[in-house]
């Protein structure tokens, strides 16, 4: 599904990714761990098509070169990034945003757009699965939401948009144990043979709830080590310094 070869990324003359290789197949859950400043969020930003990066190397998504695609086209083709810091958008109602988003994707895929009633039914169902109070949906997008509410809202978006590749950028940061479990349940219930996850995290604790097939250690812009779920547990005990 995703094949990254020798990826380099530079921003403001800072060379951050220095030859990263990664292959993700449908049905797989990959975790990327690493110390601060290792390039984890840069990888997420580059995959989402954020402007400002100078990129070398090759990223293929289902055989198609990602560099040719705009951010919205990537989303329309099934790439989803749960933001580390979801943005507050004043004046934009959460429901309106969700519907515009879902219908933009449906439209781009040549599918029938959802009418208001069908959409509201869908969003209500998904929100209740995540324990999100309905009144949040009529509030301005992320405005005044707590850290945990913002992260839950990202997972809600994922469940509504049904992406093929979900990138979770430190979704666990700022979550208490209960919220962490709800988020993890949200991910686990969406996991299937067709879709894949790339989970970026500092800590093992999210991986206690979402079992990864592969754990990669990112350091100094490269993947230094790859292992299975055991690697994450080992890292928690010994820290990064023994590995990188």
């Amino acid at each position, binding site marked *: 599904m995703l094949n990254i070869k020798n990826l380099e990324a530079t921003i403001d003359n800072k060379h951050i990714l220095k030859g990263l290789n990664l292959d993700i197949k449908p049905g797989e859950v990959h975790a990327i761990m690493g110390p601060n400043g290792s390039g984890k969020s840069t990888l997420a930003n580059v995959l989402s*098509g954020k402007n400002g990066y100078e990129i070398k190397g090759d990223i293929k998504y289902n055989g198609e070169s990602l560099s040719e695609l705009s*951010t*919205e086209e990537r989303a329309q083709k099934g790439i989803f990034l749960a*933001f580390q810091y979801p*943005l507050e*958008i004043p004046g934009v109602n959460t429901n309106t945003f969700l519907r515009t*988003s*879902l219908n933009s*994707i449906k439209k781009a895929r040549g599918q029938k757009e959802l009418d208001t009633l069908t959409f509201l039914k869908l969003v209500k169902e998904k929100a209740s699965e995540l324990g999100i109070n309905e009144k949040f949906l009529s509030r301005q997008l992320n405005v005044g939401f707590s850290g945990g509410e913002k992260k839950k809202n990202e997972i809600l*978006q994922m469940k509504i948009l049904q992406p093929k590749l979900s990138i979770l950028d430190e979704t666990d940061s700022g979550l208490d144990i209960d919220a962490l479990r709800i988020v993890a349940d949200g991910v686990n219930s969406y996991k299937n043979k067709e879709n894949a996850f790339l989970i970026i995290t500092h800590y093992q604790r999210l991986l206690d709830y979402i079992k990864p097939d592969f754990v990669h250690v990112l350091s100094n812009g490269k993947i230094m080590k790859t292992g299975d779920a055991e690697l994450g547990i080992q890292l928690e005990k010994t820290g990064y310094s023994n590995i990188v």
Partner: protein
Amino acid sequence: MKQNYDFKIEKIKNLSPEEIILRKKNLALFYQTGFPNKKDEDWKFSDLNSILGKNFNNISNNDFFPKERGFKKINEFEHNFISLLNGKLISTNFSYEEKNKISLDNFDYKNEPFLENKNSLYFLNNALATGGFLLEISKNYKLKKPLVIYNNFSNSLKETIVNYKNSIILNENSELNLINYINNSSKENFMVNILENIKIKKDSSLNNILINNSKCNCYFYKYLKSDLEKNSNFENYLLSSGLKFNKLDIEINLNEENSKSSVFSALNLMNSEHQEIKTRINHNTPHCHSYQKVKNVLNHESKGIYQGKIFVKNIAQKTDAYQLSKALILNDAAEFDAKPELEIYADDVKCSHGSTSGSIDLNSIHYLKSRGIPEKEAYQMLINGFLCEVLEKLSDGKIKNFLKEKLERQINGY
């Protein structure tokens, strides 16, 4: 502007000899300075003389006797209406109300005193005004439905100026939701010059909305003077995007205790549109509130201006006055000028002002795009969110939705 305007009092029918003399005096006063230009401090950001000079070959007046003609009414909510064509009162409908509680007539030029605003457009209006209306709401009467004033203009107003005066009186403990609806899509340049006097008596409340319905080559000026008595409330919502030129010159006099006023504005300016909101809020007495929030989005080579003055008289203790202007500038060729002014002579007051301008937040755009929303739509969503916020305080849900839809159309370029 080169002196190519051609104004004739003789074109106005049915004037008494005294009126002709008074109007000629006013016309002479206008000719002393011509249209306002940037040398006048109040017009330093809107040099009307040069704007008209660039866009008009000639401007003349006329006295209109238009026949009634059909026009499209708002069907989103039930309402009373007054329809004007080129400023002349054409038809009215107050079918939702008790008839004897509302008095409506043509503006009475013989008995109504002229307002005192000493710019040359004021003199020109005094000289040439015909039409307009006088609306009075009886004591203790609260209108059941909103009142829409359809300001229609005929498409034949090529290089013509339309001048009229309105007067609105809300007697004690009355209430009115007023929607000034400008409806015209003329490709021809024409100008409108309105003087309006509003009196809001004790315990009364007026919601005053101005909305422009379609893009047109109208050069619009309105001077609105209002006087508020004890416990009265005056809220203004200004949504005039789409007019080629617009200057709203608003004076609010808080003359008695516990009166409240607000001015909310949301403008999305495109191409070479030029719009100015100028306010003067006079706190003449203690314990009054005023609130202003002006938001502009500037595309292409448009220009937006906000000159907001708060004046607090020495006796006006416990004044609470606030003004804020925010602008989003989307193009290097666009311009926004803000001139906030506070003139305070009392010492126990709460007055604050702020002004910000900047570009759109690209991280927010990225966020929306990452959810599959195309870039153009992402911009429109953010602009919409930015502007719609000024409507939040409107209590009537139907009107609020109506205005939101209109605003969205304005943002999408009609």
